[in-house]
């Protein structure tokens, strides 16, 4: 094992890891305002990617991505308005089953619209074979795109939630719904907004990752599981920790290829998920004190 190869694995791990983190943040946004885990989160990623590929046939890549993200956001809003908004105090079990049902429906619709073919957007710059050399290590420019855009998303979101009125209102809903309502915040609109945001972020992730990983109608589930693993690993609801957790999982997965056949790559992350659920359901970074008061 040369140092260069080691570095290659590391870069690959970081690339995937940051994508997982973005999916995890999508989970967190909805979880924070509603207490719901949206099992259809992965479908947003798939929808974004697939829509962008289709739109790309008659518009340039950047425009296609923007349009795909917008369309997915609208779908996210519609889902919330049609299926979630009017439910009066639903149980967790009910919400789990509804979002699972939604994910199946979206997947099936996608199958009928786009069939089973694997698709991808073109590379944002250069081609599949072009690479940039950094001190003797070759990496694809798309990797830099992924890392760059994802970092940007994280920074913007962080700013949004801590420095804008709207972001603060959304956070208020998460910490205390009743109090937020009393302060004149429309909790329902915040929930819709969280679905819109979450769908948009998921869709963007789907667009930028598609040139590397390719996507098809059922790519969502796998990404959702990884994203959820990362969300749990970082502690549900904690988006900054999700980034760290994402990188950990991505790198672990990337290096796991050394010891296990690729077919079991997914099994690794799920084993990590199960392990963390059993041992520390509050995540790697949750404090013991807070853990003892939470229900899992």
């Amino acid at each position, binding site marked *: 094992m040369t140092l260069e190869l080691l570095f290659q694995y590391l870069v690959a791990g970081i690339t995937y890891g940051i994508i997982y983190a973005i999916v995890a943040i999508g989970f967190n946004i909805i979880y924070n305002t509603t207490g719901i885990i949206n099992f259809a989160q992965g479908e947003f990623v798939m929808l974004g990617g697939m829509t962008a590929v289709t739109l790309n046939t008659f518009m340039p890549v950047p425009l296609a991505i923007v349009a795909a993200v917008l369309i997915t956001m609208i779908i996210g809003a519609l889902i919330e308005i049609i299926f979630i908004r009017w439910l009066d105090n639903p149980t967790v*079990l009910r919400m*789990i*089953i*509804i979002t699972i*049902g939604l994910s*199946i429906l979206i997947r099936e619709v996608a199958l009928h619209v786009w069939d089973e073919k694997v698709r991808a957007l073109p590379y944002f710059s250069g081609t599949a074979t072009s690479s940039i050399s950094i001190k003797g290590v070759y990496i694809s420019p798309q990797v830099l795109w992924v890392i760059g855009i994802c970092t940007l998303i994280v920074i913007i979101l962080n700013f949004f939630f801590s420095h804008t009125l709207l972001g603060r209102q959304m956070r208020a809903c998460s910490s205390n719904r009743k109090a937020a309502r009393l302060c004149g915040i429309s909790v329902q609109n915040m929930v819709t907004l969280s679905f819109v945001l979450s769908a948009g972020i998921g869709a963007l992730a789907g667009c930028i990752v598609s040139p590397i990983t390719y996507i098809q109608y059922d790519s969502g589930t796998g990404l959702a*599981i990884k994203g959820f693993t990362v969300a749990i690993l970082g502690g549900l609801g904690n988006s900054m920790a999700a980034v760290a957790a994402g990188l950990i999982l991505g790198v672990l997965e990337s290096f796991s290829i050394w010891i296990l056949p690729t077919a079991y790559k997914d*099994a690794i992350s*799920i084993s990590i998920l*199960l392990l963390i659920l059993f041992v520390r359901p509050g995540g790697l970074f949750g404090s013991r004190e807070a853990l003892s008061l939470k229900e899992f």
Partner: protein
Amino acid sequence: MKRLRHLHIVYMALLIVGIQVVTSATDTAYFLTQLTMSAYYSLIIIGLSLVMGYAGQISIGHAGFFAIGGYLSAFLTTYNLLPYQETGIVAFLSNAGLLVFSQDIYGTDLLTVHPWCAFISAIILTTSIAYVIGRPVLKLKGHYLAMATLGFGIIIFRIVLGSSYFGEADGLSDVPGFPLIGGVEISGNMSARIVNYYIAWGLVIIGMVLLLNLVKSRVGRALRSIHGSEDAAKAMGVDAAKYKLHTFVLSAVFAAVAGVMLTHYNGGIGPSEASVMKSVRYVAIVAIGGMANLWGALIMGSVLNFLSLRGYFGSMDDAVFGSILIIIMLFAPQGILRKGILKDLRNKLTGNPEVKQS
């Protein structure tokens, strides 16, 4: 109460016989094949109904237990041990009469594990896995529990899909019939179609009687109390964790038995049986039947599986079950096969405030 319970079983038996007679008379005996298969699927459904309705736990991984049973049984009854005939353990098993000689269709000699022995191994393995996985999993609630069981299901799916021992994407085939007493065997043999139909539904009846008894017993009452208020149940001395675990394991065994039998009936098993979609489908059927309603689960389990197996849903198969899930959970979270559903519906349509839902 007790008489009523047994009366329903009698009705069910009459219906089973009735359907067989009608299909034979009308020359539509081919329906029996799918009816037999849906019987085995119903076995999983009623077990899962116990977990979801009575123990109040969700499991999106029951296809995993079905697959463990089916795959282990298929593997043991098809893997040729002849090359290892002289090695210690194989020789020992052979001497103990646990192995059988046979020939495949090309005349190759095979030495495989006896189906009964494979069946028992499958049940033991499933029970152990359910215990090991159930202990930590059932400490979780809500989303965490759902994801953990889903994760378990996916791991099983990945293992059967990625392992050459289990035939990867092709699955395992050429599984022999499962011999019962008097030369009768569970197999897809055309001539044994009617017998197999009765065997399958006989198993369902046994399963139903066992579970109905359980629900009415001290254990069933304790389970309902856990569902009603876990804290109060504990305060009354009910070991909630143990009861949940045992229920989970019991339902896993039901799923494994179904897996073994259906595999012998079909003569093989493929990775789709372990897929997440299968697990979700079982959850959907339990939900539509009404969570704590074994009869509802059984009826929906046999009807929907039969329709699906006959191909009535076409390429929309998964979409149908997805839609069922959403519609039921949105409008009738307690299922549709229960008393008072019409009243609720009327209330909803006329805009009366909803009765308390749980």
